[in-house]
């Protein structure tokens, strides 16, 4: 579990990059928190610098777009997903729970990975993990 920043320091529409290996991008997409691998699955660009629209982020280099809920690309040139990571808020601090890097992402077509909603504290511990983790851990708290 990696602390990211205070919830109030990541306002809606903003993103932050974690210097993990590999780096992770954390987004506040209109009040929902998501974390995905920061490096675009196409080539070498940082998704935390991308263009956020709803729960899609557009890569700043060749405009591939990724669904933050699943990590799946929604258009070319990307053809592979980026890994998603679970996000939680503990005592007002955002945390990322890294998905095991050795796990290959499975296309998450089923909407089991609901996004965290800032207005609904109970669901804050959202999981983008497609590795079969329980989406909720109950440790989330927006307060």
């Amino acid at each position, binding site marked *: 579990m990696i602390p990211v920043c205070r919830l109030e320091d990541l306002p809606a529409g903003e993103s932050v990059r974690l210097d993990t290996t590999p780096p992770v991008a954390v987004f506040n997409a209109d009040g929902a928190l998501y974390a995905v691998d920061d490096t675009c699955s196409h080539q070498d660009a940082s998704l935390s610098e*991308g263009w956020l629209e709803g729960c899609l982020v557009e890569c700043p280099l060749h405009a591939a777009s990724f669904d933050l809920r699943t990590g799946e690309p929604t258009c070319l040139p990307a053809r592979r997903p980026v890994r998603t990571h679970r996000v939680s808020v503990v005592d007002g601090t955002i945390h990322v729970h890294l998905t095991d890097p050795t796990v290959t992402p499975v296309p998450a077509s089923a909407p089991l990975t609901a996004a965290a909603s800032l207005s609904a504290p109970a669901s804050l511990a959202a999981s983008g993990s497609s590795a079969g983790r329980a989406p909720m851990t109950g440790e989330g708290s927006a307060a």
Partner: protein
Amino acid sequence: MNTVTVVGASLAGLYAARELRAQGFDGRLVMVGAEPYLPYDRPPLSKSFLTATATTAVTDASTITALDAATPTVTDRATGTAAHPPYASAPEDHLALTDPEEIADLAAEWLLGTRATGLDQRGRAVLLDDGRTVVTDGVVVATGASARRLPGPQPAGVHTLRTLADARALRADLTCGPRRVVVIGGGFIGAETASSCVALGHDVTVVEAAPLPLLPQLGPDMALFCADLHRKGGARLLTGTGVAGLHRMAPASASGVADPGTPRLGPSNRAPSSPSGISDRPDPSDRPDLSGHVTAVELSDGRVLPADVVVVGIGAVPNTSWLSGTSLTVSDGVLCDGGCVTSLAQVVAVGDVARVDGVRAEHWTSATEQPRVAVRNLLAARTVEPVAALPYFWSDQYGSRIQFAGHRLADATVRIAEGSPDDGGFLALYEHAGRVTAALAVDCPRPFMRARRELRVRQATAA
């Protein structure tokens, strides 16, 4: 339409094939490609591909990848049977533009390692270099461009960089210890190659005929900034001087001793310089023996730069020779209307080879954006939609990422809208008559994306 033939199986050709299927064409799709590979991506060839460490390099034989296994329709021209294209895996896997599933979905006939040599008058038959003819209803011309070369034979150690084969050969020359590398031409490919060579620890000099590299593309202020990238990055940049010729070793029989006395285009017989500063007269000493390795580059001002490796980056020439004798108009590219349609309604052109509404863009993004419109017009048998794309390209040099979008007008002024060229990233806007017409960013992706979007909206509303 029963048969569509895509000539040129690279970026624009692949996107055209995708669009044909996506837009409902379910007839026979033939892909003719001169290179023996499935479509691969060129931009990494001057960047990550060159700097990838030698330990990850692999031989072709040991690395048949998934790309091969699922390509039953790839035909070996020698045997006429299904073939495994020599597509290597890591580090070359990341160059692949497609995968076995997509190849299967496209259900195309891939004639790889096969060159189109002609098109009949009405564009109904594509002639191939193995003597076969593909009778077709529609043609997508996607033959791209080839690297322009120096005149005369190319001594060993002298490279151009356009294809995977070029990049492999150059990389092999760059993995035998520190070298003196001379890059001729300071354009994007020259600059990226120079940057990669510096990263590999070589001693690098870039020679540019113009007073500044990239002047026509970026204008004086930003061209100056990019020139400084070379200096700050650790390469020498010599501007305002052309190349008179190359020195090379005497042929191998003469015990491999350097033969400095005979530049191939000596001062006395130097051909008049072309605008690029590169003489285009054939080499007067057109010797059959190419074994002599390059030893130096002689400049038109008389200076001689010792060199072990020379990279020639002086632009690209559109591949149109196979179209001579057709009714298509060719003038530095295949002339098309704004919808990529040529003078024959059933022949469209896309990518680096296409001069669309007077403009030939040599950008990756154009090659990916034009095919949707071109295919729509091809299937409609007339121009129903023009290309509305805003020009965009990027370049990675010395750890900096340059992004450019829009149209730079000749007397535009440049305003720094964000950051500063003196430290870190910045966004520069090109303004003309009070309007922003282009944007350039260096390590400033978010603001650049905003500017690019605004330019796109403005272009759409102006249209």
